[in-house]
């Protein structure tokens, strides 16, 4: 199958730039916005890879949901006080990551893939049908996982009313936001 239009490189730049920002910025909030940028770029790549639906879902859930939830969490539990990892830590991290990147990249460049032409269609209806017929069990399992995640998130984030006597006043003030937080976690 033919190559993707070169204008996709623009989204590659957005995605990698956003990822770099999210990794390198010290302010955790800035890092989250960098992540949002990266996710937006990745959604653009999905568009170029032929799946606007997945791209839309990526924007809807990742950019509009997960990164927003992260920002919310940062605002509820904000501690910028400590510096991010020192230079030794960074150096120690660069070695394995660089190694990993080099090895896998080398393998990728050496490998050859059998590029084939499509027989199926990109139609959204087919995706839906497959989702509910062929992958029905996975789908249901995933929905159960989501439900559990929602319930679990609420239970974990919820303040324990009985043992919550030793909380500071500051925390009590913050607890008002918890309802909103759990609400928004339910949303995502």
């Amino acid at each position: 199958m033919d190559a993707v239009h070169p204008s996709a490189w623009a989204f590659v730049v957005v995605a990698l730039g956003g990822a770099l920002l999210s990794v390198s910025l010290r302010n955790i909030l800035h890092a989250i916005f960098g992540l949002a940028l990266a996710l937006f770029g990745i959604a653009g790549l999905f568009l170029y890879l032929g799946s606007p639906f997945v791209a839309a879902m990526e924007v809807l859930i990742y950019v509009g949901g997960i990164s927003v939830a992260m920002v919310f969490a940062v605002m509820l539990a904000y501690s910028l006080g400590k510096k991010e990892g020192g230079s030794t830590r960074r150096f120690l991290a660069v070695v394995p990551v660089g190694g990993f990147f080099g090895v896998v990249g080398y393998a990728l460049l050496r490998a050859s893939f059998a590029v084939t032409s499509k027989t199926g269609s990109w139609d959204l209806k087919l995706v839906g049908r497959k989702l509910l017929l062929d992958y029905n069990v996975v789908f249901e399992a995933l929905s159960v996982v989501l439900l559990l995640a929602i319930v679990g998130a609420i239970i974990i984030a919820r303040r324990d009313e009985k043992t919550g006597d030793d909380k500071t006043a500051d925390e009590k003030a913050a607890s008002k936001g918890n309802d909103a937080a759990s609400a928004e976690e339910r949303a995502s």
Partner: protein
Amino acid sequence: MTLSHFLLVALALFALGLYSVLTRRHLIGLLIGVELMLNAASINFLAFDRFVVKDPATGQIIVLFIIGLAAAEAAIALSIILSAYRAHRSADVDDLDELKN
């Protein structure tokens, strides 16, 4: 752009995510790294789907599953981060070194 380009981009994203997980001390920084890695995997799936696999619906479905799982994971992780912050007044990994509480 061809398949290997996409794979390289995904690899770079994965490496960045890994780096983030390794260096960040803020819990949300870890989460960011994980999300990046998940997305790198998604790009790989869709790229193979686009260039290699005969039936393109499958890759999309898998990516959708990844997105759904990521949402669930983020919800849980964030609530854990919140409760950890409440218990320790810190969202720093190094401070969370007790098994108690």
